[in-house]
Each structure stands twice: as C-alpha cells, then as structure tokens.
C-alpha cells in the first residue's frame, strides 16, 4: 500500500511540471491506482482520477486550458525547444526509475534491478546541467535549473541522487551499470546456496539445519565480512545478509554456543581473589611506614603568655 502512496506522491509532483509529455504515464498509473483508492499524504483525495481532475491540478494537466496568473511570455524568455525536449526526457526517465525503485524497496533489490534506470536518468541530468551550449546557442542549465527559487528539477534529481548515494549501489554493479559485478554475483550464488539449504532442512529439527548448512553459511558470512572490510557492499547485499543472519541466529537459533561458564567463573574468581591475598599479606607482613616527628624550634612560651596578658590588660 505504502508503495503506491509514494508512487502517487511522486507522480503528483511530476504532474505539476510536465503537462502533455507525461500524459501516458499518468494514464498508466491513474488506471493502476484507480483500483486502489488511496490517501495521498497531506490532503484528502478520492482516488487519483479525482486528483487529476481537481481544480488545483487542472492547470498542470491541461496547459491549453490554463488560467495562469501570467499569460505566456515573449519568445526569448521561454525555454528553447531543445531544453524542453531534454526536460521531457528527464521526466520520462525519472518516472521509470521511480517506478523501478518502489517495488524493489522490500526486500531491497534497488541495486540489482534499478541501476540501469539511474544511469539513464543521470545521463539526461548531466546533459541538462552541462554548461556546453546546445543547438541554438542555449544553455539549458540556466533556463531549467537556475531560473527560479524552487529549482524543482535540481531538487528532484537531488532526491534520487541521495537515494543512490545512500544505497552504495555503485559498489555492486558493473562500470556500465548494466548488471551486478563479479563480486556481487559470487556473493549471490553463495547466498542462494545458503537459502536453498535453509529451505531444505527447514522442516523439523533445527539442529540438523545448523549442522548441515553451517559450512555454506559460514562461507557466506566470511565473504560478507571480507567485503565489509573492503567496503564493497551495497544495500542489497547488506539487507540480504541481515535477513540471512536473522534467520540463522534468531529463527533457527544456530549461533548460540555457550555452556562453558564454569571455567570462566573459576578463572575470574581466582584473579579476583588475588588482590585480597595481596592486601592481606602486605598488611600483615610489610612493616608499617612510620614518620619521625620533628620538634620545631619555637619561641619560649612565656613570651606569648606575657604577650596575651599584655593584650588583656
């Protein structure tokens, strides 16, 4: 459910900017979400179709019918054809990436599934933000990114870029973002082996499972620890390992090894006993250090006595 909500949220934002170019996407999602009436965050809505046709959003949906506060600008202030084309492309790819991300949220598959989408999105953004002049000697960077206070395109891209950064996906995919790299593939094979093993012995007594799957699990765990050290991990792997570890330790209860409490207690109580012996023996056997008192030279006391009597009199 929540996936859809966010999807809708994203879409609504997009709808605000792109009028005609996005109609297809809107249609797809609108029909998609019309089946599940949702609560969009922050306002009441009665299904997405209602949102689309609500007066607030109308201008964005249908530009021909817009009642802008300002009527259209003269030619030279409007963005160029090239730039609006770029913008349109950006929108398409943005939606595509988001569409990919959301179903991959749990269990996390964002790197494995969505890396190519991110790549294509960032390509467009690089084009937009490059300071090279396009056809007609226009720089889209200024007209799209920096013309207003909101800097919407920049913000939008920034959001997704943060997601990408946080997910550490570049550690797991090949240089051209086409698919998982070798390390990841190897890890995934091991993971699959382990999971298969778990599946196989899941029924019945878990001690069997612990015994039989130990090797694969341990191999996987070691590989993971190694990768952790090299910091070649992305969120997919971290998540999958977390789940596996949880299965292993919590659900199957395989990691608890104990039962040697007695030697530990013995050794520690021996060590804790040593200071008592030490202090007792040094109290009993070491000779106490004595201080020799020195008697300072003082004035004869009758002086002071006289003195005080003088004062009193």
């Amino acid at each position, binding site marked *: 459910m929540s996936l859809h909500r966010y999807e809708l949220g994203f879409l609504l934002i997009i709808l605000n900017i792109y009028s005609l170019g996005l109609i297809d996407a809107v249609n797809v999602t609108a029909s998609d979400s019309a089946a599940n009436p949702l609560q969009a965050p922050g306002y009441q809505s009665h299904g997405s179709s209602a949102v689309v046709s609500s007066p607030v959003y109308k201008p964005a949906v249908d530009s021909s019918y817009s009642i802008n506060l300002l009527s259209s600008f003269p030619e030279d202030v409007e963005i160029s054809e090239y730039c609006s084309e770029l913008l349109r492309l950006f929108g398409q790819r943005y939606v595509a990436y988001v569409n990919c991300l959301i179903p991959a949220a749990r269990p996390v598959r964002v790197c494995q599934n969505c890396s190519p989408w991110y790549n294509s999105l960032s390509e467009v953004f690089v084009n937009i933000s490059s300071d090279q002049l396009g056809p007609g000697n226009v720089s889209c960077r200024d007209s799209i990114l920096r013309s207003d206070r909101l800097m919407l395109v920049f913000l939008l891209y920034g959001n997704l870029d943060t997601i990408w950064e946080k997910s550490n996906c570049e550690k797991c995919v090949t240089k051209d973002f086409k698919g998982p790299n070798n390390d990841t593939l190897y890890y995934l094979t091991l993971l699959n082996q382990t999971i298969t093993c778990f599946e196989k012995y899941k029924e019945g007594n878990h001690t069997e499972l612990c015994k039989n799957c130990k090797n694969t699990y341990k191999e996987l765990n070691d590989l993971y620890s190694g990768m952790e050290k090299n910091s070649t991990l992305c969120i997919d792997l971290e998540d999958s390992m977390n789940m596996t570890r*949880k299965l292993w330790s919590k659900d199957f209860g395989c990691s608890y090894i104990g039962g040697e409490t007695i030697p530990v207690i*013995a050794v520690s109580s021996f060590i804790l006993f040593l200071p008592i012996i030490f202090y007792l023996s040094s*109290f009993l056997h070491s000779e106490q250090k004595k201080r020799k*008192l*020195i008697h300072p030279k*003082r*004035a004869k006391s009758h002086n002071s006595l006289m003195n005080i009597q003088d004062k009193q009199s």
Partner: protein
Amino acid sequence: MANITKKVSWSSRGDESGAAGEETPLLNGSEQSRPLRQMSSGSTVFQIGRLSTVDLEEEITTEEDSARGRPKEIPHNEKLLSLKFESLDYDNIENQLFLEEERRMSFMAFRCLEISRWVICGLIGFLTGLIACFIDIAVEQLAGLKYKLIKENIVKFTEAGGLSISLLLWAALNSFCVMFGAIIVAFFEPIAAGSGIPQIKCFLNGVKIPRVVRLKTLVVKVVGVIFSVVGGLAVGKEGPMIHSGAVLAAGVSQGRSTSLKRDFKIFEYFRRDTEKRDFVSAGAAAGVSAAFGAPVGGVLFSLEEGASFWNQMLTWRIFFASMISTFTLNFFLSIYHNKPGDLSNPGLINFGRFESEAMEYNLYEIPLFIAMGAIGGGLGAFFNFLNYWLTIFRIRYVHRPCLQVMEAMLVAAVTATVAFVMIYFSTDCQPLGPDHTEEYPLQLFCADGEYNSMATTFFNTPERSVRSLFHNPTGTYNALTLGLFTLTYFFLACWTYGLAVSAGVFIPSLLIGAAWGRLCGILLASTTSTASLWTDPGKYALIGAAAQLGGIVRMTLSLTVIMVEATGNVTYGLPIMLVLMTAKIVGDYFQEGLYDLHIKLGSVPFLHWEAPATSHWLTAREVMSSPVTCLNRIEKVGTIVDTLSNTSTNHNGFPVVVQVSGDDEPAKLCGLILRSQLIVLLKHKVFVELARSRLTQRKLQLKDFRDAYPRFPPIQSIHVSQDERECMMDLTEFMNPTPYTVPQDTSLPRVFKLFRALGLRHLVVVDDDNRVVGLVTRKDLARYHVGKHGLEELHLAQT
C-alpha cells in the same frame, strides 16, 4: 655604588638598624651564631584555644622530656608536614650583584628579554602539542593492536569453547603493559605517579617538590601514561599532559638540560624560580589545552589551580602558549589522519559536537540538571572518601617499589577480568550500526550482525567509551548495562587512582558520570509518556560527566570552560556551570577535592588562598621559629660550613646581622642570605683573605649563581680545608639587603597574606630595635588548619 640601607618593614615602629658600617671589623662570628636547639611545642595535635596558654606551657614541659629522649614515631596520616619539601624563591633577591647587572643591561636587552619570553611560550605550546600528539598516536596504535589480538582470540574461542583462555590472555596482556608502566614509575621516578596535577599545583604554590620538573620525570610520565592506558586501566591521559607541559616549560625556559648535561647558553636570564614559575604555569595551561582542545580552559586552569601570581601580560602569554599547543596537536593529528591542514581535531579527548536539535535543552530541565549535580557531588565525595583510605593504606603498607608494581599489575588483571565477566554475562545485544561508531565490536553470544553493548563500554579505550556514551543514538545501551557499568567502573577507577602508574582521573570520572547520566536520561524517558521531550540521553550523559568530574576534582571555573570548549557548544555553559556549582557545594560538605586530599596526604606545606579562619589572635611571635641561626656580615668560613652541614636543621635562609657595639648587645638585622648562595660562595672560595692575596681574581657575578641553579651541590661535596676554615667571608655583596620583616605582634593572617601574595620564603620577625627574634617560613604557616575541633596544628615529620 649605591649602598642600600633602606629597610622594608611592615611595622610602623622603629626599624632603624645600626647603620651598617663600611669598615665593620672582622668579628669572630661564632659567638653570635646562636646555638641550635630543639624546642618542643607539643607533639600531639592539640587544640589551640584562647584560654589554653597556660595549659600550653604545662604541656610543653611535660612532653619535652619524652620528646628529647628519642624522636617519636607515628604512622603516616594526613596531619603531617614533611621536612623534605622546601619553598621556591619566588622573591627576587635584590643584592648588589643584581643591581650591577641591571645597570649594565641596555634598553634593548630588556626588549629582547620580553621577546624571548614570547618565543619560549610559543616553543612550550608547540612541544606540548607534539607530546600530546605522540601520546595519542602511540596509545591508539598499541591499544588497537591489543584489542585486535584479544578480539581475534575471543572470536576464535567463542565457537570452539575455552573463553577462559581469552580471559587469561586479556588479563595477562593488561598486566604486562601495566607492569612495564609501573616499573619505570616505581623504580625510576616515583614522582611521575598519578596525574601530576597536585604536584604542579604545589609547584605553582611555591613548594619545591623534588625532581618534579626534570626531564627524566617527563620521559617516565609520557611512557608511563601510554602503557597504563594501553594496559586497560581505568585511567586517562589528560592529567599527565598537564604535568608534561609543565616539565617542558621548565626545561625549555632554562635553555639547558642538567640531566643531559647540555647547556645551550640561551635564556640564561630566566634561570631563577620566579621566571620559571611563570613558564611552568604556561606549560600547565598548554597541557590542558592540548588535552581537551580548550585553550581558554587551559588559561583558566592555570589561574584556578595553579598560579598564585598573576598579571595581564603573563595571562596573554599563557593564552598564546595554549593556543599554539592545541593547534599544533590539531595540525599533526590532521597529518596522521591523512587530512593535512584540516584543523578540526582539537584535543586528546574529543567530546564530539553537540549541535543537533535533539541536544537542545529547555528551561524545565535546569532543575533536573541541578539535581544531577547534587548526585555528582555526593558520588564524588564518596569516591574521594574511599580513595583517601586506600591512599593511607598504600602509604603505610604498600610503599616498597616491587609491591607497588605488583599492586598495579593486580589492578590491571582485575580490571580485565571484571570487564570480561561483565561482557560475558551481558545479554544486551544491539544491531551493528551503519557507520560503525564502535571500533572493536564484540559479538560474543549475540546473534550474527549484532554486537555486545557492554563491550563497547569496556572493550575500548576510555576516551572512546565516553564519546560513544555522549553520542550514540537512543537505545544503544539499556539501563541495566549502564547501571552495572557505572557501579563497577566507579570502584575500579577509585581503586586505580593512586597506584604507582602515571595516569589521570579526568577520563574515568567523565566516564562514570556519562554512564549514570545517560542512565538518568533513559529512566526519565521511560517514566514520561511524552517521550519526545526526553529523546536524547546524550545531553544527560554530558551533564552527568560534568557533575561527576566536578564532584571529584572540585574545579569550577576552568572545568566549566573546558567542558564548554570540549563540546564546542556555548549554550551548554549555563547548565554545566550550575551543575559544577552544585557538585562542589554538595561535595565540599562531605570531603575535600581529590587533588587537595592528595596534597594533604603528601604532607606538603601548601598555602591556601586565605589564612585559616579564627586565627587572628595568633601573632608572629607564636608562629615563628625561634631562636634563629644568624650569620654575621663578615663570617668565619668554618662557622658557615658547620651551620650548613648540620643535618638536624636543614635551614635555608640565614638572617645576616651586624654587631653594633659590645659583645653583649644583640646584633641587628642587615640582610638575608640563602643556603644556595652560601654554597656557591664556598665553591668559588670567595674569602676575604684570598681576595686580598689575589687581586686579579674574577669578581663573582650573578651568572655564577644562575649556572648552579637549580641543582646546587650539597654542602658535603664542597671541600674546605682546615686553613680555609679560618678565613672570613664578606656577605655584604651577596645577601639580600632588604628582606621583608614584620614586628612580633603581626597577626597570622597578616603574615599569611604577605607570604601568599609576595611568594616569600623567609619572613624575618624583628623586635623594636630591629633585632632578629624569629623567622617565619612556609611550614610555620602551613601547619595551622581548621579541623573538626577548631584550629589545629600539623606536625613536622621526616618522610
């Protein structure tokens, strides 16, 4: 040559001494030097009351007999003053040599002196920063190695079984490190034990603690602290930094090292106690500044704990040294962390930044903070109380070096064991964070992907533990873990302080406080339903740390500033200040601060800010030592040698007197000469007869005295032949012709004020005719203190 005849006197009465004649006849001085007698004024602590003068006399007569027979021996206690401590000569000796030298110096020379003072302060800061950097890196590397080793071992044995072996390994490694650290302290330089702050405090107060600012002490201190921190003791490396800075300052300002027998022939002007003191206070400030990244705190520390003598220019110079020190450390640590030029790494302990929104506090939290301050004061007093008894036991029974080493090793082993047992039986498992704030996460029996929460507090250097207590997000520790940790660490830290290892008490106090402070935060959060108000226990950890530290060491001004600077957040100024005030008030109600306690237990004649209350009725006559061993202005060498060689009375200052007329007339005061000066004179054989025979003999200069400073040879090492014993010495040129004097009726607080404000070492008590009747020294003043039964007197003792 101006013949100084002016007398500085603090009485309005006549001080016209008999005019010191130019042609004083060579008198045989032996008759004038008073016989050295021992007088007793009671050998037990007795109460001095206004009405007890008659009793006093009786007591003396009854006890004199027993005291005469054999020196009385008593076990060590806090009510003693040790004979081995002497005063420093903070008062300038304005003798003729000094005046001559000053006349010779040009205006430029004085400017150069001022500049070289700045240069020295810069050097002090720089070198202190370097030392701090060295300690930091060495500790990090060695501790990293140790923890890695133990962690691997534990991981290995968690599965295979046999964790008791890991325990033994941990205990053995700790003991081994601590053994090394304790051996160098106990056998080579016992003065380097502890944090060094009490010693520096005494030094700046004017007490000459033997060997406290030697190079050897510095080396032992630095190496010792590295090993005791690596050895996993409940100690920090901050206190020793202050001592290290002070030693560095004392060394650098002298331009030579007597230990290394190297004289760089620079900064010769600064070779006297007064100048050295100023630099030592700069060094202590630089040490604090390097330790906590708190330059202003360092200056204020010097002001609060140390310097009894203060002026603006000095403050400014000290501030300069502090600033240089913290930024030197900064710079070199940035290189070490591969971020050269990044100057945001101040201080050995970095509390991290308290800047997030959750760290904000509100008005209604202030009472809570104050309550925590009260808890801190109470706990601190309890800590000091326990440590007091432990220290007395140690002084009495554990005084042999090998025993001290054994004790330190045992403490190390027990610390490791306790930590291990706590970790072993802890069931508090937390998931590994994404950013890995834990340096050495220990899994032990936790599920995979989780770590043992107890281990982050114990299995770590104390600095890191403090930081994780301050900054780890809510829920990192559960209440039971923190409670147990506080309890055990409290006793461990208390047990550890006072061992023969070089180590400070700042970090353990902060750690204890941070643990129970965080506990308070967690409990508060759990009691209130509106959890959002009490979200972050980190700030309670900070307040708890401040409270605990304030409760133990009882510093106020400097500690507030240090904490504020170390957290980098001025808005915490008010709560920290309130907390420290409360902690001090509550703590002082029960027990003194830890440093004062140790100064007292060390039998140091320490002069506090004020004379003890209710002492105005005591006059100089009762306070002074009498009779005084005086010397004639032209004295026989044999007499001088005999006086100096007398081991029973290790006098240091001798009033110089001049005979006015006949033999029966008592002599009048005309000056004061120090033992050190006499020794230099004897060494150079400045005898009247020799001067006559060898006219070409070089005149003794102030430089000769400076060259012998600060280690004047003992009198035994100076050979005086039988013929020379019959020679005469003219002290006129060398003595201080204008010593401070007071009349007999001056009250104790007045004498005290003079002593404290001027940094005196000897104060001559004279009668109406300017005749010497007594001499007040530091020990005469320091023996009075206010005890449970009013004014009490401390005993002098040989230690």
